[in-house]
Structure formats: structure tokens, C-alpha cells
């Protein structure tokens, strides 16, 4: 596949649908969670009550095409996904930060892998290690809403995915 065609497949107009499909597959199959479409107004309503957020990003690259997929979600959703994934009582003790970061990193890694396999299944992309960063406050939430991302509701909790094209090398060597 030529590089122009590859990048068109990865970043082109169909990217949003392909990422949404990958998100639904991962959320439903491994996390028993339902994904719904969500417009800005509904997202703002869902997001308003959450102060603590996590952003998880995975870089992907091959010689001619590179970028980053990032997901932003409230800690409440991350905790809910953790409980669903592990078959743990959601009302039990909260997970350690390290466990939560590992899980959300894998969640994003799976979304990225599933999407790239569909978008460019003939190419081998190198995925960087997931980088998970805590975010806090209303300002962060407003920035998430303003970003040109794909908004969704997972089990009625807000979730944003952003795709950025770029050629910088992966920040870490492996997943």
C-alpha cells in the first residue's frame, strides 16, 4: 500500500466511523459496556458533574504514517470499566491508581489496535506504550468539549476520542 493511500485510510473521512466501531467492539466485548453516540450538549450535561478525569494516549507509527489516538474519560467511568472488566463489585473498595492506569492504557491500546487493523490491516504499525495522565477541573472538561474529538457516552458516562496526525517517534518502546 502506498503511503498516501495508507494515510488516507488512517486519517481520512471514514476514520470517525472506524474508530467508533472499534470502541464499541472493545467496550462491549471485554468491558460489557454500552456505547452510545453523544452530541456536544449531551456530553456537557454528562460531563458537568465530573471533576477528576484521565487522558490515555497511544502513539502509532510505521515509516510513512504516524499519529496518536487519545481517550479522555472521568475517573468514575474508568473505575466502572475496571469493575466490569474484573468482575468486581462496583461498590467495593476503589482500585489503586496504578491498576486503573494500567487498565485504561490497555483499553485505549485495544481500541487503537482494533481500529488500525480495520483501517490498514496490511501494514504493521508500531504502537507506543500507553501514557495515562490525570486531568482535573472544569477547565479541562471545557477543553475536552472544544477539541475536535469523537464524543460518546459509555454506560451514560462521557468519553472523548481524539486522533492526531504526526510524525514524532513513539515516546516509549513497547506496550
Amino acid at each position, binding site marked *: 500500500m502506498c503511503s498516501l493511500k495508507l494515510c488516507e485510510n488512517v486519517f481520512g473521512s471514514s476514520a470517525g466511523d472506524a474508530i467508533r466501531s472499534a470502541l464499541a467492539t472493545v467496550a462491549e466485548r471485554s468491558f460489557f459496556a454500552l456505547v452510545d453516540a453523544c452530541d456536544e450538549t449531551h456530553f456537557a450535561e454528562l460531563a458537568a458533574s465530573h471533576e477528576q478525569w484521565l487522558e490515555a494516549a497511544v502513539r502509532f507509527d510505521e515509516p510513512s504514517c504516524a499519529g496518536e489516538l487519545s481517550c479522555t474519560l472521568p475517573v468514575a467511568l474508568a473505575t466502572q470499566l475496571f469493575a466490569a*472488566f474484573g468482575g468486581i463489585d462496583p461498590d467495593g473498595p476503589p482500585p489503586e491508581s496504578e491498576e486503573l492506569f494500567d*487498565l485504561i*492504557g490497555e483499553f485505549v491500546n485495544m481500541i487503537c*489496535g*482494533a481500529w*488500525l487493523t480495520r483501517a490498514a490491516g496490511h501494514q*504493521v504499525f508500531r504502537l507506543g506504550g500507553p501514557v495515562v495522565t490525570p486531568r482535573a477541573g472544569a477547565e479541562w472538561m471545557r477543553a475536552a468539549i472544544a477539541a475536535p474529538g469523537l464524543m460518546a457516552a459509555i454506560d451514560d458516562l462521557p468519553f472523548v476520542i481524539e486522533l492526531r496526525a504526526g510524525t514524532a517517534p513513539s515516546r516509549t518502546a513497547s*506496550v
Partner: protein
Amino acid sequence: MKPIRILIVDDSATMRRMIRRALELAEVPAEGIFEAGDGLEALRFLEAHAVDVLFTDVNMPVMTGPELLKEIAAAGRWPNLRRVIVSTDGSTSRRDEAAALDVRCYLEKPFSPEVIRDVLAEIV
């Protein structure tokens, strides 16, 4: 299916837990389920313990999945070890690379417990 000994190799504790849980939900008759955080740790475990089935991730620090599989092939000590790759990368190139490393099955994440049960029924 007779009880089997399974080694899960992944640098993510979450993924090791996911595979273990899928094995339990699929009611796979396991004599033991063991874990390693990278290829080198897995190799050391294999040198000291009997294992029937190996599930390995691709990208890991210290020693990657393909590097581990090459070491296993070169050693020639484990001809009956069934090798399964578990990865988010389902590209055809990656699958071809796995086939050349004597991998019996390539599992694409995410997967359901039923898939893991079917895979084991086929290869064990």
C-alpha cells in the same frame, strides 16, 4: 480435554488478568495458570517448569513475544509446547510473522471466553 498447564506472558497485569479470567469463564480444565511479565521471565519459567500452552503478547520490554518464540524454537527443548499470540495488532504481516514462528493460533484482542475455549479445543 485433559487438564493443562498454561503460561500467560504479558507486561500488563490487566491483560494477564483478562486472559486468566477468560480461561476461567471458558471453564478450561487447567492444572495451573502461571504468569510472566516479559519474554525473558517466561523463558526462565519454561526452563524450570512443564507448560502445555503459552499465551504471549507481542510488544513487551526486555524480550518481546517474537524474540521469545525465536528463543524457544532455537532451543528445541519444547516441541510439544503450543504457542498462541495474543495481540491488538491483527495485521496480516504480523500474522504471517507469527506463522513462521511455529505459532498455532493468533488471538486478536479483545476476544471472548468462547473464542479462547475454541482455540484450546483445537490445539490441545
